[in-house]
């Protein structure tokens, strides 16, 4: 099953989802598509005009283009997802720290989809890490096609 991970660039979530036999939906795969198939030059050019227009489906026109650009990438992934895993209260440098409004909107879209969602706390010690891994393992094990 396709699992949307939040933060969408997290290696720990990507690895754990794959380890437990599911397909993680990550921003890296979509970026790869752009790098390979369209001319993407320097970082400011990563978001094309088409992306911003696509993002209108997920965020209003008054929302800054950066948020719409991010949602143009995350939105289709959320629509394709069968379930989602969200990490709560991560440290500042963990995940897409560019704009918290994008993260809020992504969580809102996940909630609106009504798919099974697992929200987990970022671990700070071994016991919490075991809880995190155990919850992910049980959540993914309980998903049925």
């Amino acid at each position, binding site marked *: 099953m396709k699992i949307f991970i939040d933060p969408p660039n997290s290696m720990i979530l*990507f690895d754990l989802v794959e380890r437990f036999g599911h397909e993680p939906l990550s921003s890296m795969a979509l970026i790869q598509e752009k790098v390979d198939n369209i001319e993407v030059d320097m970082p400011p050019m990563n978001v094309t005009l088409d992306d911003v227009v696509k993002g209108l489906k997920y965020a209003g026109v008054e929302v800054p283009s950066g948020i719409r650009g991010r949602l143009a990438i995350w939105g289709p992934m959320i629509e394709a997802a069968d379930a989602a895993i969200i990490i709560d209260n991560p440290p500042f440098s963990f995940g897409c720290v560019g704009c918290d409004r994008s993260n809020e909107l992504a969580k809102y879209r996940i909630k609106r989809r009504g798919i099974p969602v697992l929200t987990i706390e970022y671990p700070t010690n071994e016991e919490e890490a075991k809880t995190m891994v*155990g919850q992910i393992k049980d959540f993914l094990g309980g998903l049925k096609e």
Partner: protein
Amino acid sequence: MSQSRITRLLMISPDSMVTPEQLVRNVQTMAANVSVKETCYGCLVECDADTMKIVMEKVRSEYRNEVFSKVRGYPAGDPRRCRAQHGTRPGFAQLEAEWECLPLIQSALDAFDAGDNDYVVPAEKKPLPVKELKEISEAYR
């Protein structure tokens, strides 16, 4: 996702005794037509999708809970990202944060592999009902 070129990032957990050099040498022997670039945290592996499946199966069996992996958007050594050519490295803060957390994840995975399946289920957070909030407020009036 493109099937002709898959780039994956392999990161060694800080608790592991494996060095990036050992990992690179080993990954290079796992399949033909694999391009491997050594990095400070592990290595970058690049090949087609079918070969990558073989490589990842072998990496998972050989370094079960010591090496973690994710897909990378840009090719290895891409001038737009490679620091050797003064490229930007915007994802490094994220990698550093995850690298610090890997020993915890590794020990948790080791515990589950050893058959210790118990973990503390966190209490579900619920919003405070207005009635209870009112009672608390009145108690301290």
